[in-house]
């Protein structure tokens, strides 16, 4: 196992409580930042670290923070995005459940850098039991003087609270999250203005993922330069990967981003190889929104180089032969899995989750779902494959928020790499269903109701 910066103490008994967390060196980053550093110095360390947002887009965190508007007398906010709804992703839940104080600590240190006096953690409604864990941790932090007025006598005030959603993937999109936090439907806002200028209640706001905020703690403790030494290229530090699918050891792993995909999948330290001695068929390396990779592009790039678990290497080859690190939701498919079915399943997800504001997304996701359903259930036509290609191309780039793109990319990639499987579905649908799922034949001609 490589360096562990976030999960190193995860197995210490009682690390979810304040006393143990503190005894193990917790809240040192707050002491260091508030007593010895200016907010600008904290920001500089984060810039030096090269930390990139762990929510999916990988935008450099220090740069994002430097964009926040600072008009005199206007409050600023730091929001933690704990909506975690991207299929394949479950790392934030793990981190918050096991080490809630790491997130609380990161919120204080990060907010100090931004000059924000109020922060909110927005957690998905299904994680209600984790919300309670966080509220307990926050209460402990208040009792021990890490939150509230004049923290450590520094003159800096910071209040932190948790609020929640209620089942809507779209609320992970930062402007939808802000709307939801204001007690509205989760409809994304048109940008600009960006949250850094007009966010929560029209005030300057930064939204960061749970893991991003947690990573600020080791960055301030050990210095940005130390953090930047880990990993490779512009993929500095460690990354939490949620591994699922047909592997021997699914779970959350903290990796250094210079390990190879092959090592990640096959080493016993990580996924432990494909389950039941099967062969690898495909992999979605960064959550359901990123392009699926066929087996021959998972461990090697198109140029034949080892693919690494880094932002750059997973994206090598662009969408033609690469994918994205995304949220680190790493889903592995064995030889028995059906790509058409998986694409239909994901498309149903996006259709279900579209907020409905823009017609290409609202109508396009539903249309793709219908077409994929008929292909999967044995009454598709050859032209449907081109139709799907056409629909996804018309969604991409034509919507208010990136959910449209997120719905389009998986369809495009599935057709790009597995066109033959789609064709096979048109020609021999029953055989695919029998092979993959053992579903009874009468189900094949189920009417399309989607």
């Amino acid at each position, binding site marked *: 196992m490589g360096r562990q910066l976030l999960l190193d103490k995860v197995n210490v008994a009682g690390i979810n409580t304040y006393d143990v967390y503190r005894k193990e060196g917790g809240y040192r980053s707050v002491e260091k930042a508030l007593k010895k550093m200016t907010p600008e110095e904290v920001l500089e360390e984060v810039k030096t670290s090269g930390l990139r947002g762990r929510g999916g887009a990988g935008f450099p965190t220090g740069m994002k923070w430097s964009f926040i508007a600072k008009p005199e007398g206007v409050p600023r906010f730091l929001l933690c995005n704990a909506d975690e709804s991207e299929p394949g992703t479950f790392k934030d839940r793990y981190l918050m459940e096991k080490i809630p104080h790491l997130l609380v600590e990161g919120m204080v240190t990060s907010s100090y850098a931004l000059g924000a006096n109020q922060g909110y953690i927005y957690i998905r409604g*299904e994680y209600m039991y984790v919300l309670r864990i966080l509220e307990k941790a926050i209460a402990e932090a208040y009792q021990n003087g890490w939150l509230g007025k004049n923290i450590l006598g520094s003159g800096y005030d910071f209040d932190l609270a948790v609020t929640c959603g209620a089942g809507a993937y779209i609320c992970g999109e930062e402007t939808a999250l802000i709307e939801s936090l204001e007690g509205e439907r989760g409809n994304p806002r048109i940008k600009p203005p960006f949250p850094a200028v007009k966010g929560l209640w029209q005030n300057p706001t930064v939204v960061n993922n749970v893991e991003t905020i947690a990573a600020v703690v080791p960055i301030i403790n050990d210095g940005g330069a130390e953090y930047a030494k880990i990993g490779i290229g512009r993929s500095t530090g460690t990354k939490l990967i949620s591994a699922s699918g047909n592997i021997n050891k699914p779970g959350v792993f903290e990796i250094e981003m210079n390990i190879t995909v092959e090592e990640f999948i096959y080493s016993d330290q990580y996924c432990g190889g494909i389950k039941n001695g099967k062969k690898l068929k495909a992999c979605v390396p960064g959550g359901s929104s990123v392009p699926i990779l066929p087996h021959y592009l998972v461990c090697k790039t198109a140029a034949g180089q080892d693919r690494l678990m880094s932002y750059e290497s997973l994206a090598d080859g662009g969408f033609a032969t690469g994918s994205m690190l995304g949220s680190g939701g790493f889903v592995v498919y064995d030889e028995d899995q059906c790509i058409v079915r998986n694409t239909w399943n994901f498309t149903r997800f996006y259709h279900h989750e579209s907020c409905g504001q823009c017609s290409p997304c609202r109508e396009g996701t539903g249309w793709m779902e219908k077409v994929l359903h008929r292909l999967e259930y044995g009454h598709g036509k050859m032209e449907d494959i081109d139709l799907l290609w056409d629909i996804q191309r018309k969604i991409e780039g034509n919507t208010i928020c990136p959910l449209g793109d997120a719905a389009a990319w998986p369809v495009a990639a599935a057709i790009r790499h597995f066109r033959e499987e789609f064709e096979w579905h048109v020609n021999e649908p029953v055989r695919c269903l029998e092979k993959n799922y053992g579903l009874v034949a009468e189900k094949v001609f189920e009417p399309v109701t989607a």
Partner: protein
Amino acid sequence: MEAVKQTTEFTPEMLAEVDRIIKLFPEGKQKSALLRVLHIAQAHYGWLDVPVMDYIARLLHIQPIEVYEVATFYSMYDTVPVGKVKLEVCRTGPCAIEGAEKIISYIENKLGIKDGETTADGIFTLKSVECLGACGYAPMLQCGEKYHEHLTEEKVDALIEAYRKNPKANYMGM
């Protein structure tokens, strides 16, 4: 099933919790408490009917329509009656390849209902839902606030048995 509701009022404990949540937001921004307040109401009453939503509007000094539009947008809120025990089985990709569909059919057959329906005795509702952030522990279902992971048919049997005996066992909150 019958939709019985004696009252729309909150208990003193619930009102104290609402008060605490409102105070997490600045003066005048009490609407931000809406999603959490709806969760409190639903945990207590099982579902959200119009009188309860109107009551919440009065509590938060907002218009009833503002409550309805939120309650109907988010998939966790039920604006029609559901069973005492809601079994929400994840159906999304990573769970699907680990057998979520078989688990859903198994529950359908066992309870004699289809996805989205409630048993005649009003105890169980089955609902397939999208990814719940437990993909590595698939297949899984959520009941109340609890996650039940690595499901097998035997585990489902035991769960259903336990919930039938004590339908409220799933709520850890209010």
